[in-house]
């Protein structure tokens, strides 16, 4: 079949348009019965930059993971240069010329930049002895092309974030790929570094490389992309629209027009200041964070990945130490050296990554839930088994965790039930201040609603909650007040949560001083 003819293109099959090199057709994918991608079409022409946009959980990373061979699609086909292809492993996609520049660095910090670039394809004279000269020459050529001046013997751990990103891109380019997927490449970059990156992307495009550019920062789109494709709830809602579209319209596309109506929660919080944070800072992560938290209030903190919100959540709970600023809890100054101190003073945190930081996956449900409240059911060091069972049972029932028995290992539970276990732990420990970092990530809608209701219920009982999230919709549902974090600072604060699109704009636009 001829892809070029069958494509439905907005340009109306302009003959002068460069050839389509990649076409993904009718891609569908479900996880645990939840449809994440629903008959998605996506294509790329030679030498173009497509910005791929969507809210958290819209399906953009799933589609890119299918393209790079990390996941297999449930149905649908991929055509590369008009030929059907099937990538069951990342190496297949990579050999076919598809490279991914990941959000996190895939370079090995203890090796030098040149060793990293040639990793796995070192030039040898057929004898296994490295041909340093040949690689050095090739490296210099690459540097010239990228207008970079980094000595080849520099260890990757000594590079700046931007240089690391450039090295990743050089690595991708040096392997003769035709398609590069860049996942949030500007996340950790300053504005000068971003400019340098954009220049490189422009050069690559001129050389005929096709680039998928995933970003949270919408104002970057118009300066770099030829077109923008927007995905929402697993469906493409705007295909190859102009990147010059006003940001407001793109946001509307990302969110969808109708924002679901929910019955509003009762918001009645006291005036008592529970926690006061002044000029809190942590080197290279966030600075000058000040706010107060009242008893019985849910404070939402909005921010995209890399905004510093997770680092702030960790510091507030004692998981990391602060480098500057101060905190007072009920008018008493506090300084935590560990989460043990935090819990002792009545601050608990449910971390962002429940699998690696929230739960002991190989342990049973009961042990995971009672972990933070053992001291209250212990006599002379011995655990009161009856109390432990009845108490965990009651919080598990309160959150309607689905399980066969309490001694089931949590690794066999669904994501939603796992998250409920983490929440149950804190319901049981009952701290004065509960910090939740992305508590609904990767969870089905019904469980999300349940978590919102639980959070509101806790607040109505006088607990204070700080709710960190990258999803503006849910912040509107749960929070009484909202702060927006961007690049390690509080950018804006709302006494009453604004509309979803304003919040999203605040999170993702770099310069929108009003």
């Amino acid at each position, binding site marked *: 079949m001829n892809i070029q003819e069958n494509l439905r293109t907005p340009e109306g099959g302009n003959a002068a348009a460069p050839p389509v090199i990649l076409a993904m057709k009718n891609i569908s994918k479900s996880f645990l019965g939840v449809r994440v991608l629903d008959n998605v079409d996506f294509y790329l022409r030679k030498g173009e930059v497509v910005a791929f946009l969507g809210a958290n959980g819209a399906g953009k990373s799933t589609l890119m993971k299918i393209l790079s061979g990390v996941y297999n*699609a449930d149905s649908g086909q991929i055509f590369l240069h008009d030929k059907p292809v099937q990538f069951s492993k990342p190496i297949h996609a990579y050999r076919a010329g598809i490279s991914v520049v990941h959000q996190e660095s895939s370079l090995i910090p203890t090796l030098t930049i040149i060793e990293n670039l040639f990793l796995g394809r070192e030039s040898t004279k057929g004898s296994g002895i490295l041909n340093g000269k040949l690689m050095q020459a090739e490296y210099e050529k690459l540097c010239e092309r990228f207008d970079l001046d980094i000595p080849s013997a520099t260890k990757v751990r000594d590079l700046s974030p931007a240089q690391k990103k450039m090295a990743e891109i050089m690595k991708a380019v040096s392997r003769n790929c035709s398609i590069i997927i860049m996942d949030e490449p500007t996340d950790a970059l300053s504005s000068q570094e971003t400019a340098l990156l954009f220049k490189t992307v422009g050069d690559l495009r001129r050389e005929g490389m096709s680039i998928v550019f995933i970003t949270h920062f919408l104002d970057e789109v118009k300066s770099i992309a030829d077109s923008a494709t927007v995905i929402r709830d697993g469906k493409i809602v705007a295909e190859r629209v102009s990147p010059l579209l006003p940001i407001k319209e793109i946001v509307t596309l990302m969110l969808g027009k109708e924002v679901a109506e929910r019955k509003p929660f009762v918001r009645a919080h006291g005036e008592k200041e529970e926690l006061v944070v002044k000029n809190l800072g942590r080197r290279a992560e966030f600075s000058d964070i000040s706010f107060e938290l009242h008893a019985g209030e849910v404070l939402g903190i909005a921010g995209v990945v890399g905004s510093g919100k997770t680092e702030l959540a960790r510091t507030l709970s004692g998981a990391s130490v602060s480098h500057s600023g101060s905190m007072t809890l009920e008018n008493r100054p506090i300084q935590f050296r560990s*989460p*043990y101190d935090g819990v002792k003073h009545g601050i*608990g945190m449910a971390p962002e990554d429940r699998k690696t930081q929230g739960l*002991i*996956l190989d342990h049973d449900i009961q042990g995971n839930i009672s972990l933070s409240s053992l001291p209250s059911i212990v006599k002379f060091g*011995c*655990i009161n088994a009856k109390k432990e069972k009845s108490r965990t049972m009651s919080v598990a029932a309160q959150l309607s965790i689905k399980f066969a028995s309490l001694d089931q290992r949590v690794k066999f539970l669904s994501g939603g039930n796992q998250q409920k276990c983490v929440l149950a732990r804190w319901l049981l420990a009952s701290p004065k201040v509960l910090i939740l970092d992305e508590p609904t990530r990767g969870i089905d809608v019904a469980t999300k609603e349940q978590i919102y209701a639980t959070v509101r219920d806790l607040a109505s009982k006088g607990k204070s909650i700080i709710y960190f999230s990258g999803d503006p919709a849910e912040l509107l549902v749960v929070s009484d007040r909202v702060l927006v974090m961007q690049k390690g600072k509080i950018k804006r604060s709302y006494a009453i949560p604004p509309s979803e699109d304003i919040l999203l704009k605040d999170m993702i636009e770099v310069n929108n001083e009003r």
Partner: protein
Amino acid sequence: MSGNNIDAKAAATIQAGGMDASKKRGQYYKEILKRYGLLISFFVLSLGISLLTPNFLSSRNLLNILRQSTIVGIMAIGTTFVIIGGGFDISVGSVLALSAALALGLQGSMHWALAATIAILAGALIGLFNGILAAKIHIVPMIATLGTSTIVRGLVYLYTGGYPINGQQPAFEVIGSGYLWGIPVPVIIMIALVVIFQFILSKTQLGRYCCAVGGNKEATRLAGVSVDFYHVMTFLIGGLMAGISGVVYASRLSSATPLAGQNYDMDAIAAVVIGGTSVSGGEGTVLGAMIGVLLLTVVTNAFNLLGVPVFIQYVIKGLIILVVVGIDSYSKKRPR
């Protein structure tokens, strides 16, 4: 064309949804096997050996096996805690030698009970030192205890001057060689310690937190547990048990050589792992470790009864360890 291929794959995925029930049943059997597999293989092995060697089942031989198990057995109780906490301790063999040397050497100038207590406390102190190196200074436990092991062995040589210390006060002899109700005293000591430490492991806050630290230290830390303390405690218990086993050793042999306890640490680790404690930490039982010790002793005993040369015994013992650990590690690391 590849389209059919993808459809077939999708169909297979849909069908896989219906296989949940049988998959769950498989999981159930796997858990059962994991829990009781060791016990079953222990009895099968013992049965096989008793058929091959009629002497095996004599009460004399059985008591002998039990008594032979005590020194590594007591050590393995501590090693269970260390491995459950996510660590390794290869210094316990040297600690045994030091404890044995102190227990006998100090008896020349003080009451045997005081000497034994000091010997045991010395073991605990070295365990504490190991724990601080591993938990606070973050040295990989294997390397930290390798260093300690060398230091302690050196201390033993310094203390003994390189010669065995012989002789003991008569009352001290009871610990290793006495009988109570027809049962060897060291066996009674071992059983008592197993009961106490199995209780600590499964019923107390200390035991629960030790498991939690080994299961996921960061998650446990974030839950508000002072993880370093419990991490250190696992090593302290490891050293304490090695100290006790050193005292039993000294009493039983009434001699402490500077080379005592070599390879005992490896035997203890092997027994613990054979006993179902996860090499990566987080779960395990003292009882399992005891069965592991008995299993290793039975194998050695049977080899001796059958006249298998010692050198071949080493090879086979090593293979048993690799197979057991291999099954555990492979089933955990295999991608799903």
